[in-house]
């Protein structure tokens, strides 16, 4: 019996040591640190904006394919681009953004399809799980208990090793989150500098991508959809105007009509608007930077102009012409 007791103690000690290490000691200042800094900057910028304001929120599709510095002036609304990365849990994102949203604000959600269909398990273990445990335990405490467990058990052996490597590289001054983000985002959080010239070296890679769209059933049953619906209810209750939209994708892949219908219905059923652009936000391969969610800069601007015009129509707002500086940029 004593042997079994000692073994049980070893197991408990292991869990305690693991928790202490990843909650208090180890960190990933480069990979997670870059995401965290990007998030902090966007939230801080949003906190300074007067209401009513526009928030563009999705994964990296928001940042790469939408430009607040085009949409905002055209709609005469202060605008912040909240998109960071696809894997960041929607519950986490909404929890961070909700306190900054006020009656009259508008949230445009061109969510990537993977954000609707993400499973509960994958949502718990996204890149934000480690950030929540190490740096944002107050936000973590506001999330459901399943998220606490996910955050506690987010780190595997690679995370342990990567933490050691990143901490060493960061301490040696070889790389850092500020350097990683330098010149890549404007003040509003839009991704800049994804030029067509840089995109050329990615074209062969882009040609190999063939991402299938989810089915309507997957949209309806995805864990991400549950989180989006919960946010739409919150928005309605707080007089925030939420509007769904489509992510940018390759035109070569046709969006199934039932998937489109299910996506639109998700918003309309929950008292939100849904924005459809001509061509369903689908563009030729050559318009993309390094993935179907990421347009090259000129096309990002063109897409943003189209989004601003459609939003103006949906919101019945007056529209201004695009800012003069966009004339320097061309899509195709």
């Amino acid at each position: 019996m004593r042997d079994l007791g000692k073994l049980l103690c070893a197991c408990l000690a292991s869990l305690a040591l693991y928790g202490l290490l990843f909650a208090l000691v180890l960190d990933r200042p480069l990979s997670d640190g870059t995401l965290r800094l990007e998030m902090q900057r966007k939230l801080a910028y949003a906190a300074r904006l007067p209401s009513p304001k526009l928030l563009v929120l999705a994964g990296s599709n928001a940042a790469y394919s939408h430009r607040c510095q085009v949409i905002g002036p055209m709609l005469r609304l202060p605008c912040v681009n909240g998109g960071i990365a696809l894997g960041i849990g929607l519950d986490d994102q909404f929890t961070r953004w909700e306190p900054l949203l006020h009656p009259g604000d508008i949230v445009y959600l061109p969510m990537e399809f993977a954000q609707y269909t993400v499973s509960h398990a994958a949502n718990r273990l996204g890149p934000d799980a480690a950030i929540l445990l190490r740096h944002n335990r107050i936000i973590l405490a506001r999330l459901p208990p399943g998220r606490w467990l996910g955050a506690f058990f987010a780190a595997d052996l690679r995370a342990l090793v990567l933490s050691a490597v990143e901490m060493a590289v960061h301490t040696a001054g070889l790389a850092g989150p500020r350097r990683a983000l330098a010149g890549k985002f404007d003040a509003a959080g839009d991704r800049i500098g994804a030029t067509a010239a840089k995109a050329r070296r990615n074209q062969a890679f882009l040609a190999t991508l063939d991402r299938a769209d989810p089915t309507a059933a997957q949209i309806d049953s995805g864990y991400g959809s549950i989180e989006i619906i919960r946010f739409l209810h919150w928005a309605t209750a707080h007089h925030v105007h939420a509007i769904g939209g489509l992510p940018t994708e390759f035109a070569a892949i046709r969006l199934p009509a039932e998937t489109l219908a299910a996506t639109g219905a998700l918003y309309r059923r929950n008292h939100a608007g849904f924005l459809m652009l001509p061509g369903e936000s689908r563009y030729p391969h050559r318009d993309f930077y390094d993935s179907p969610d990421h347009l090259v800069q000129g096309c990002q601007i063109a897409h943003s102009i189209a989004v601003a015009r459609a939003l103006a129509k949906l919101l019945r707002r007056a529209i201004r012409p695009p800012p003069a500086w966009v004339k320097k940029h061309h899509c195709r």
Partner: protein
Amino acid sequence: MLFNTPVFILGFLPIALAGFFLLGRWAGRRAALWYLAGASLFFYGWWNPPFVLLLAGSIGANYGLGQAILHARLAGRTRQARLILIAGLALDLGLLGWFKYAHFLAASLAALAGWPAPHWHIFLPLAISFFTFQQVMFLVDSFRADRADAGLLAYANFIAFFPHLISGPIVRPKDIIPQFQGDTVVLWNTNGFAEGLDIFLLGLAKKLVLADTFGGFADVGFAAANHAAPLGFFEAWYALLAYALQIYFDFSGYSDMAIGLARMFGIRFPLNFASPYKSRNIREFWQHWNMTLSFFLRDYLYIPLGGNRHGEGRRIGNLMATMLLGGLWHGAGWTFIAWGGLHGAYLVIHGWFRRLARPLPAPFRPIGRLGAHALTLLAVILAWVPFRASGLPACLTLLRGLAGLNGIALPRLMIRALPALGWIARPVPVLPYLGDTRTLAFPEITACLALGWFIVLALPHLHQMSAPTRRLAVAGSFAFAMQALFFAPAVIPFLYFQF
């Protein structure tokens, strides 16, 4: 059902253990053994229920044949015993041959004749390679009268006992059957259970924490080789070094889990791995790698073929035949035959070396030992290339990378940190066939490989560890194992399941 899944650990295992010991206490040994045999068949049927009939039929037929052989032999009817043995071996090897090798043989013959490849869809029953060898052992030991008379119940448990049914260890009838026949098997032993659980948890950590991590690194490199990608020097070596660790931790982890599970049921299995990568020659390697298979090949193939008793030519022939068949046993493919052939050649060369080489002078012996270790390790690692590659073209692609024929590149960040590296490597933003193609993948994988090889080369294996050291190992690994068990995105099967 896989050992590394919550359904096994939280569902099947506690029910199997509780039922076995409670029945043993209240209904006796026979009832407990019937229950255990039933539980083992349920475990096997979880994968594909109809194949339970094949396993049960094979157990029944082999038991009958084994008893007939033993009784004929004990009655002095050797010729009759031999005939029954031949019939039994033909049945077992015929089944294995049909399910595992028929398509390979037909495809190879068709290729030789220039005919189109056949499209047979033969479903390979899980574990057939292992339970066939167990039953071959039983028949041969019956012929040798090297086993006690056993009842069907003990025999069924000897073959189907779920801890070793799928991937071994391959255990001898005379070592295991008497354990099932003893009355003490059904007596609960807390310390035995704790020891078994301890070994099981460390085996689980080897699989989930180490093998699956290294497997992820190896898969990227070998997948690139399958597509004839121009693997660089570091990408090729890192993939190969990672695979060598993956297969060791995966299979030795499985063996430890099997040993631990058996110990929980009061059964002792033999050791199957004993730090094989620490070996200083290839013979020693085979005495420490998959030891129960090595003993089987030696005692049931190499020695019956004549071993080293009929001159050098026959010795080489027997050794090569044994290793080629050993390779083929791992899988129906030319790459496995090449792996077996390589190891056969290594063993032949080692035999010559042992006879011809003179001992080094005393001051040079430590260097000699180090050189012998390095050479053995290099030979073993290089032999994993054909074992893991999907075919000959992929082997050649990987070997080109290993030889540095596609150049030596390193991430720019590394060269900035250590400028001397710039003398041997050209800077690139990322290595495209290394890990997940990030700048930091290189130092991350370097550190992981260093940790893995440190564990393998510098630490004792877990059966050499004292109980307190083992508990320390549990304290270091348990949380990571639970993380992988309950939170990993996918369950990765054991590598030896495919064999």
